[in-house]
């Protein structure tokens, strides 16, 4: 079982707490969509570093990951990917699941057991993709929190995404 120090739990809760407040609510999502379609220097970069932008970013940075989303419609360009409502919806699903994991740090294996089976048996996703998404998530957090994303913070979150990836791969056969 993975051990989490008090400091690590604090670093996870602290970051996630601040993120969750911004993630929730139709207003946040609408603002995100608006920022994607109407970039403006005044609004800054905030939009593209919303956590739910992690999945679109994965599909752009590692385009071969698009292989799992052939039924999602238009993925022909970064703009298309970012604006794709199915991608956005799936990104939210992934993030919600992550939130569940954070509430159950001491039982990640249990939390992800069914999802692991699903990703193996139905979705046929190579677990390497979980590691890639984890790395993207860390970079999105880094850009969001800038200097607050200290080396200790990064270390804790890389550990978390690594453990989540491991839990998701655990039921593969």
């Amino acid at each position, binding site marked *: 079982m993975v051990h989490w120090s008090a400091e690590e739990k604090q670093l996870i809760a602290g970051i996630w707490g601040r993120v969750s407040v911004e993630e929730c609510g139709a207003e946040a999502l609408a603002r995100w969509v608006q920022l994607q379609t109407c970039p403006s220097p005044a609004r800054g970069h905030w939009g593209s570093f919303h956590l739910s932008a992690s999945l679109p970013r994965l599909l752009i940075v590692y385009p071969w990951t698009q292989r799992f989303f052939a039924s999602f419609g238009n993925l022909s360009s970064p703009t298309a990917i970012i604006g794709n409502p199915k991608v956005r919806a799936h990104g939210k699903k992934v993030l919600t699941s992550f939130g569940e994991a954070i509430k159950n740090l001491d039982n990640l294996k249990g939390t992800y057991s069914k999802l692991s089976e699903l990703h193996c048996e139905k979705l046929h996703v190579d677990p390497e993709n979980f590691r890639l998404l984890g790395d993207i998530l860390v970079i999105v957090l880094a850009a969001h929190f800038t200097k607050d994303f200290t080396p200790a913070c990064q*270390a804790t979150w890389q550990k978390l995404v690594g453990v989540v990836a491991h839990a998701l791969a655990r039921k593969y056969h």
Partner: protein
Amino acid sequence: MVLSAADKSNVKAVFSKIGGHADEYGADALERMFVTYPQTKTYFPHFDLGKGSAQVKGHGKKVAGALVEAVNHIDDLAGALSKLSDLHAQKLRVDPVNFKLLGQCFLVTVATRNPSLLTPEVHASLDKFLCAVGTVLTAKYR
């Protein structure tokens, strides 16, 4: 993996923006790597790896310098990094997996210090570039 014209342009833009701070970026990326991936410290038993270490700063400057050199000769990475490639193959023999780890940390450093630079497209280009550098540095391993 091949760097497109757009990739090269994106990478040059990043390093142009980083400008004279490249040394700090190098040191920051190394510090993050040692904290996040402690196994990487095994290559530096002779270093003081504590916070603010002058040796880490010095090494960060070296790493950054090599990256800047690579960017300035982005059309011929193998040529530009040939000597470093020899060094890593014959003397340093850093396991290839570690270049990806340092690459991740460099991206995080850029993200924390210059988030507006890191659009998804630029992120992709920079990641490709860092992978290409790692590939060149390990190309002569066997």
